[in-house]
């Protein structure tokens, strides 16, 4: 899968799984951090995103060390999914 396509898909998944009512997928900057600043998501939101990503792509985000790398930005997340997708 093209990284650009996956980024669009991930934007939609984030908006849907985290029920971000006021955010449009196009509002998400692919290079901004997903958590903390930016979208204003907290670490508990990340749990739900982990579960949704694991279910959708068959990947595993086993712990927060991996999570930090994967959630550094949308672009980093897409890279992680491509590398680990089953």
């Amino acid at each position, binding site marked *: 899968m093209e990284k650009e396509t996956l980024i669009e898909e991930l934007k939609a998944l984030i908006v849907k799984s985290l029920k971000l009512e006021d955010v449009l997928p196009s509002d998400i900057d692919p290079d901004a951090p997903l958590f903390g600043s930016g979208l204003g998501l907290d670490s*508990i939101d990340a*749990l*739900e995103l*982990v*579960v*949704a990503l*694991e279910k959708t792509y068959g990947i595993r985000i086993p712990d927060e060390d991996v999570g930090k790398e994967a959630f550094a930005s949308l672009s980093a997340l897409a890279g992680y999914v491509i590398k680990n997708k089953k």
Partner: protein
Amino acid sequence: MSDRVALVTGGTKGIGKATAHALVRKGMRVFMNYASDDKAAEEALNELNASGNLARTIKADVSDQQQVNAMIDRIVRETGRIDILVNSAGIIRDGLLMLMPDSNWHRVIEVNLNGVYYASKAVLRPMIGSRWGRIINIISPSALLGRAGQTNYSASKGGVLSFTKSLARESARFGITVNAVSPGVIATELTKEMDERVRKEFLSMIPAGRFGTPEEVAAAVLFLASDEAAYITGEYISVDGGLT
């Protein structure tokens, strides 16, 4: 509640078995975990399945993370879900601290505290995925009051109570509640083996003047597992005849 799937650790004896029975009576599919006693497990299974076929036994040592993960994977693979976890497996190795063999400290922590950590961690992904879950931990008056001869046991149960409160805060957003039940002195195999002096000493401390039954503890667990208890989390209920 009837399509729900529950796992009760230490589920083939005493309080665990009574809890498994109460959940089965609500029509749930219940996995009764046990560590080693195959005979007791078979008896419990026959007893619970006398009026239906909802119960299963599942063998795993809760102090072994690989076994716990394999157990929960198997339940999710077979049923597609896990809705309720009752952490009831526990051991006692009483003794005064100064003379306590180190192995008795470590073993109690491994089973009673680490076991709760492993099982709770393993059910969170499926529970968050379905946005519904119940984790109910069996603790003890020792966690609340302390008791001479039980530094290891009270530390493990006190740890579980604090764990309960923190995990409740992490998981409330997902429709998952995490609570504890603290049974007082309950009439089980353990109390049958008590000597008469200890028995009298316990009875004198219990305002209700009698030991509790496993079914009375199970009733509190069942309530916390219900939809009606959705807004209760990070709490504990004492079922102890007024002891604490």
